[in-house]
């Protein structure tokens, strides 16, 4: 029951947040100089008026706001101003799975690499492995992902010729960007796992487990890891936010047709409807992900109560 109330509360909060985001960005967007129909070639006034009428931009701003809000509630984001052959819903429907694929793979990289190296570092504390993994982790955190991307392209694309330079369409094309996306988070997760693991390994119940004669592998993976997972899971919330924003740059570098490219371009080109659609999708996504993380946290840690 607790869970149900928690979810209901979160949902209510999300609706309010989305509405605030909608309102603020609706008016902010229209405050920025420049409009969707400005180009180097200037439109005649008649054509401009026609275009504004087509997209309801000639109506009073309050009317525009309520029309747009009404349509948004019905999940209809309207036509894209700049990609005239598509509606915003179609653009998002094409972009979202791509970004999701990239994000998920990035996350999988981050968690597997991070946790593996974290556990190894903790178990072999102060060894060569520990030092080198932690150095790599620090590097991963410190190097911005677009710099990492450039280095990896030089190494893996031009020197080793293992991967294509960019593009979207097959598995080999997703590896490099997903790795670049996940690298900084892998670094954090490695350090969190190491710290958490060290703390757990010092506990009495671990000593008991060893005393029972369990093998070191079983002790570490079955009893230790469970405890060390806590800080990692709580870090997943911010990590997901980071993955979402991090992909904006990487999508550009690796020509990945995801939400990030659409969002940036929409903002630059003043594609009001598309920018709004992408923004609201991001808002909802972040909310949902954070809620899931909180739920997961309450599941693995009995001490946590959902509020």
């Amino acid at each position: 029951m607790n869970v149900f109330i928690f979810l209901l509360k979160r949902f209510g909060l999300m609706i309010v947040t989305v509405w605030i985001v909608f309102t603020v960005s609706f008016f902010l967007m229209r405050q920025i100089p420049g409009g969707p129909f400005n180009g180097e070639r200037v439109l005649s006034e008649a054509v401009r008026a026609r275009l504004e009428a087509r997209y309801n931009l000639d109506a009073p701003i309050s009317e525009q706001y309520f029309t747009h809000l009404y349509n948004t509630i019905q999940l209809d984001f309207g036509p894209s101003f700049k990609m005239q052959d598509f509606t915003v819903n179609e653009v998002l429907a094409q972009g979202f799975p791509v970004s999701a694929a990239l994000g998920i793979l990035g996350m999988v990289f981050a968690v597997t690499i991070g946790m593996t190296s974290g556990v190894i570092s903790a178990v072999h504390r102060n060894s060569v492995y520990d030092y080198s993994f932690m150095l790599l982790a620090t590097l991963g955190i410190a190097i911005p992902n677009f710099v990492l991307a450039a280095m990896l392209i030089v190494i893996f694309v031009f020197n080793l010729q293992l991967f294509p330079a960019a593009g979207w369409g097959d598995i080999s094309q997703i590896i490099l960007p997903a790795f670049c996306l996940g690298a900084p988070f892998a670094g954090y997760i490695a350090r969190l796992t190491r710290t958490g693991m060290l703390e757990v390994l010092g506990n009495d119940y671990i000593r008991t487990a060893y005393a029972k004669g369990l093998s070191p592998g079983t002790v570490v993976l079955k009893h230790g890891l469970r405890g060390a997972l806590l800080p990692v899971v709580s870090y997943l919330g911010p990590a997901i936010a980071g993955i979402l924003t991090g992909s904006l740059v990487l999508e550009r570098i690796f020509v990945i047709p995801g939400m990030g490219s659409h969002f940036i371009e929409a903002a630059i080109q003043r594609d009001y409807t598309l920018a709004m659609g992408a923004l609201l999708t991001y808002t909802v996504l972040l909310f949902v992900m954070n809620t899931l993380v909180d739920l997961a946290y309450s599941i693995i840690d009995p001490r946590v109560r959902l509020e």
Partner: protein
Amino acid sequence: MVHLLRRYFPFLLILVAALSAVWAVSLGTLPPAEFVFNNGTEVKTIDPAKATGVPEGRVINALYEGLLRSVPDGEPDELGRTPTKPKPVAMADAYNVSDDGTVYTFHIRESAKWSNGDPVTAVDFAWSWMRFLHPETASEYNYQLFYAKNASKFASVDLQEGDPVEIEMKDRPVAGQMFPRGTVQRGKLISLIQPHTDQDHAGEAGQGHGGGGTSGVAIFVVEFQEGDNSTTAAFTTQRIENEEIKSLVKSYQGEYDLTDLKSVEHVLFDFEHVGIRAISRNEFEVELNSPTPYFPELVAFYPLHPVHRASLEEHGDREFTKPGKIVGNGPFLLRERRIRDRLRLVKNDTYWNAENVHLNSVDVLAIQSETTSLNMYLNGQLDWDTKPPNTLIPLLKERDDFVSTPFLACYFYRVNTSKPPLDNPLVRKALNMAIDKQTIVDSIVKGGQVPARSFVPPGMNGYQSAYCGEYDVEQAKLLLAEAGYPNGKGLPTIEILYNTADSHRDIAEVIQQDWKKNLGVDVSLRNLEWGTFLDTLRIGDYMVSRSGWIGDYADPNTFLDMFVTDGPNNQTKWSNAFYDEGIEKAKYESDPVDRMAIFKEMEQTLMDEQPIIPIYFYVSLNMVNTRVKGFTANLQDVHPLHLLSIPSAGAEE
């Protein structure tokens, strides 16, 4: 339950991760096409009537075909550029021009077919051009057809009493969809009732509000002839309940009965009286206002390509461009479209000249990052890179797959002639002469660009460009002194506006130094993000601004008609009656030599008054894999896909 979850949570997590990873990598894969190129950016639309821009042109020219095609033709000039000419190697197989140069008759080839098997007829063109001009389409390029008789009246709803009109009723078969149109009635406009006394400019009233309406607050009294009888009726494009319409009806004291006022979709100039018509199935006639020697160039231009009426009416204005629904008449078909990723084109077997189309599939990528694009080219993922990064040009120039020539485009500075001291032509001339353009070309842009001493790029058939003087510091100082600012004394700081980009900043900095060093003028720089920049330029809130212009067709008019008084692209506030008259006169001049002479004189006026300072002429920059044949450097930097071939791919088959 919770305990069970807690126990197996780590495994659950691993399972979810594994499943989503599998899902992620299994997303639609698509092996690369035979020929892959970077189009630079996502095309905004593939609807010819609504498109603008070079990337859109490349795609539309592959999917559709107009009456004529601009193709490389003839011997290369001394710079290795093949001239391009509009030729009847497209939907038309011949055309002729009346002796006075105002009536063009195109003969559409018998074998012209749409990709669904329908024949392409003159009616298709008449309908498509009507759609192109229709005010509701709001085509940004519609002025390109204003040369046709009455076309601008139709497009701009410029109605006067006595004009033939067509009235579209509010009974469109599909609500909210422009085509198919509602019932159209044709009659004669006998009275135009508007709130203000100014009855001559109904069209301008229509440019204000009005949602789907055509002419703002106005009532049209139209006479219909049926045999010997004539009836009159009153229409408005507003809602009847509209307060302004109500008061207009109330205050009306004329002779016509307004009680049956009817609200309609559009009241337009009757398209049957526009100089565009299908004479027969295969003969298409265009009547022009004046001889327009470059009209064939416009006919070959992609906005005038036809669209397939039946599929557009079935699927609607946006949906008809989708793969699977689109019906084209060009050398290629659209197979797949992924937003900001690629358009997959495949050869169209119903194309009249399909046997001479060599590529079976083409991928059109939308890569915005120049570096990524070059990476992909060097890595063999691209056969043609349309925009290698400027900074690497000196390195790339040495390669034999680098194809580059000057083309019809000019990089220039606009000068706001309404801002003192820039309102003084002497100051503007001094500024021009004090810029070392050669250095800019040699040390900043470095791609083989040519310093510009005129606005119209050299190389146009029969045209000798005007001249605005070399880099001459002494002369510039004299001019400035003559203007009353010896050694720059008394001159305020001049601000150079540019849109945020490294290359523009570098050039602006060189010019800043030149003006300071040579003239003693203080210069500040201001950069703005693209959208804001365009707005600032439009409202004229600048002193000197970076600009560029690419010719739409190979005729000086595409450059010179920009700067007529209040031209939408003028933006310098410059106005010169002599110039306006000259540009207008050139429209009616049928002798090509005299016409070019007029243009030359006008360009010289432009250069003497200097509302713009030409900096350099662009060069086209292309990296093309040497295995690709049929790629020719030319004046307009057009490379029709259907002329390209990859011999080795053919040999393998």
